[in-house]
């Protein structure tokens, strides 16, 4: 009897353990599990999107991570073409007045949202009105503020009626700009329509595929927090016939090492968070592509503390960028100015046409130091270099430190974790600070506007202590102001050339890298586009056997 009891007890505990295991597998069996398993005969691409974006909707999002999802599920008045430049999207035609301030778009007849409901010019108006309303407190309204009086509307200083964004009828949208803009088609790529009535009714709309209504090449069918977002081809997309992929699975992987493992295992087909190791492994294969991104990595100099531009230039000319790139094992390009590759001047690269402004020249650096009265760096204080504490930033800092040492400039490296770094940056208690920026549109302004005087102010209107204020800065400001009103393309581009020269000649910032974006794509996958801002587009992709 006793024995039977024991056997029974054992059986019972085994059953318990088994049910527990089974319970774990529970939930909905039909659901996709976020792994790379293929969806039957469907053409599916699994893409690792890095960590899940903090915000999963276009109103509260700030970071590029969400933008990649955004431009696969939404489509603006214009879109990024297969060649990576702006072309018409939901608008099939547009006219613009002579001074480039009034843009009239014609919305395609029969346009639909992803739930099949009509999409008209009024939806664009409603979207803008909602997105920029002060009570919405959208995290980013930079692109929207090209529109006349939009800045005032965002600040709650004017009514919506005063804003230059009007639907003339169901298919005509008239946009009046605050200033002439030659590259407005690029900006119009970011003007996507939301289903505003649904958004207003459901504060939690972005957590549920049913209420996540979009208008792009794909639509969301499944949303698993922290795991994945599954997209399917949107049959209502105006260009649906040219979308070959049935499903795109965005999986969220925090760790580049796991991403590399998953790519090697063929669980993901497209990977773009590459560690130095991934780059080393795939560098010389066809699976890896490196494309320029319109961003630049630079160091900001506290011009109040290092006020002699000869010292600043000595710092810049003693940076051996090729060596630095090799040390870091990155695919970035040496920055020879502030406008990166990827920005065009007609059909050519703007950078190629404007030429190289800063190169590695250690003799010149030494000479400049001597001219400034510090031969061999004698008499110079030790400069405080602040940076973030991740591996790459620290390696970069140490390499720079030794390069500067060679010309006799001593630096002390102080690192901070990413969450405190920008607060430290704002204290301006440093001599040199790591910094960087990626632009938004194919025009030199997207990078060069950063050093305009109005951006150097504290909220109370006074100028920040550390920032660039001298005659050169004033000259720079004057040239940049001219670019906003100059309508002739060549003249305008030449103004940018001049402005950049002024900037580099006074060197309040030290250019280091032009960013490139690297991506791994399996050989059977074609047409995955990485555009100049680093976004990945799947609408032109296909899988060939």
């Amino acid at each position, binding site marked *: 009897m006793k024995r039977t009891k024991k056997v029974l007890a054992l059986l019972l505990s085994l059953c318990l353990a088994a049910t527990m295991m089974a319970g774990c597998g529970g939930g909905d069996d039909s659901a996709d599990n976020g792994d790379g398993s293929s969806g039957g005969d469907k053409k599916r691409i699994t893409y690792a999107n890095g960590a899940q974006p903090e915000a999963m909707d276009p109103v509260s999002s700030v970071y590029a991570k969400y933008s990649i999802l955004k431009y696969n599920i939404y489509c603006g008045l214009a879109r990024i073409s297969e060649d990576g430049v702006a072309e018409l999207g939901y608008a099939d035609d547009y006219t613009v007045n002579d001074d480039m301030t009034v843009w009239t778009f014609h919305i395609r007849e029969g346009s639909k949202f992803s739930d099949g409901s009509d999409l008209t010019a009024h939806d664009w108006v409603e979207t803008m009105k909602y997105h920029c309303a002060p009570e919405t*407190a959208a995290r980013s309204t930079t692109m929207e503020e090209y529109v006349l009086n939009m800045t005032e509307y965002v600040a709650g200083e004017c009514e919506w009626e005063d804003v230059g964004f009007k639907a003339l009828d169901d298919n005509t949208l008239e946009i009046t700009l605050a200033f002439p803009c030659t590259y407005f088609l690029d900006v119009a790529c970011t003007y996507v329509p939301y289903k505003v009535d649904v958004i207003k009714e459901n504060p939690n709309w972005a957590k549920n595929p049913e209420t996540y209504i979009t208008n792009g090449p794909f639509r969301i069918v499944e949303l698993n927090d922290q*795991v994945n977002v599954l997209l399917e081809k949107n049959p209502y997309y105006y260009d649906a016939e040219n979308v070959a992929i049935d499903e795109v699975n965005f999986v969220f992987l*925090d760790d580049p090492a796991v991403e590399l493992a998953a790519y090697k295992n063929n669980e993901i087909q497209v990977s773009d968070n590459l560690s130095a190791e991934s780059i080393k492994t795939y560098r010389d294969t066809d699976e890896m592509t490196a494309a320029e991104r319109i961003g630049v990595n630079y160091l900001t100099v506290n011009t109040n503390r290092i006020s002699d531009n000869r010292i600043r230039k000595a710092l810049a000319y003693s940076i051996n960028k090729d060596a630095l790139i090799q040390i870091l094992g990155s695919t970035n390009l040496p920055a020879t100015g502030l406008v990166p590759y990827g920005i065009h001047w007609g059909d050519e690269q703007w950078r190629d046409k404007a030429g190289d402004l800063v190169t590695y020249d250690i003799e010149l650096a030494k000479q400049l130091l001597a001219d400034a009265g510090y031969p061999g760096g004698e008499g110079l204080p030790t400069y405080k270099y602040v940076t973030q504490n991740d591996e790459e930033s620290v390696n970069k800092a140490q390499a720079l430190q030794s390069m500067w040492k060679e010309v006799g400039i001593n630096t002390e490296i102080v690192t901070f974790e990413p969450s405190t770094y920008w607060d430290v940056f704002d204290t301006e208690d440093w001599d040199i600070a790591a910094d960087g920026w990626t632009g938004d549109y194919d025009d030199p302004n997207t990078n060069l506007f950063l050093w305009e005087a109005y*951006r150097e102010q504290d909220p109370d209107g006074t100028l920040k202590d550390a920032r660039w204020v001298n005659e050169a800065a004033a000259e720079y400001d004057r040239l940049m102001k001219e670019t906003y009103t100059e309508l002739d393309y060549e003249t305008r581009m030449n103004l940018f050339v001049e402005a950049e020269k002024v900037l580099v000649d006074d060197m309040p910032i030290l250019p280091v890298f032009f960013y490139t974006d690297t991506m791994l794509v399996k050989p059977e996958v074609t047409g995955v586009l990485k555009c100049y801002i680093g976004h990945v587009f799947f609408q032109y992709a296909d899988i060939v056997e």
Partner: protein
Amino acid sequence: MAKFILKRVAISVVSMLLLITVTFFLMHAIPGGPFSPGEQKDLKPEVLEAIRARYGLDLPVTQQYANYMKNLAHGDLGVSMKKTNYTVNELLAGSFPVSAQIGMLAVVMALIIGIPLGIIAALKRGSAADMVSMVLATIGISIPTFVIAMLLMYLFCMKLAWFPTFGWGEAKHFILPVVCLCLAPIANITRLIRSSMLEVVRQDYIRTARAKGLSELMVIGKHAIRNAILPVVTYVGPLVASLMTGSFAIERMFMVPGIGRYFVNSVSDRDYTVIMGVTIFYGAFIMVCTLLVDIAYAWIDPRVRFDS
């Protein structure tokens, strides 16, 4: 017994208040915040102020503390400052069950494997079985879980391709994380049981039991284990709490959508409300577990009851 429990509950409540207060002020004292101007260059100062005001960050810290405590009294842990449109309650409700599942499985595995291993090691002291289990136990304790995780991933995901490298929802996604999580506890339990067992079998009452002519199974199973298991019971309380509330390293490696990642990420993101929410949750959970252990202890070992 009732008095004993009541006393323990009262102590827990006081510790909890202390924990909340200290965490709140420490958190605000560390440099940085959830919204930094330099990070987002195109954000205007006015907008930044509006965002800060929206989360009540423009108020004095003491005022923020008062507000927080008021909301907490209603069970409201606030909204996440980084993960927009999510309340902390939602985050915990979504991620805790995931961590709890693998954590509980790991605890069960640790007990099922660790206890017999420890008993065998003690009974066959000095034998090969003892040596092997002690070597395994030492390895289990000394190798960090993330190293084991990487080794397992390399072997089973990449070389043998038995398991996927990521994904969530099926039994195959559970196995490696559970294995990683239970290795160290198995090692600890084995060592605890072994040493306490060695002590217990030398006691007089065991000799008496043997002298009475009881079978070895009865001596060990009925008399020895009951006393030898006490240190394990103490150990299991905090173990359950720590395993069920997730491991940052394991969840990150295997992409488990659990609560563990919030422990670390919320701090480096300075997501104040999530830091508080996770701390309170973890604190409360560990206190409940310890309380249960104390009660179980009193139940197993009458001496504890009398002492108190």
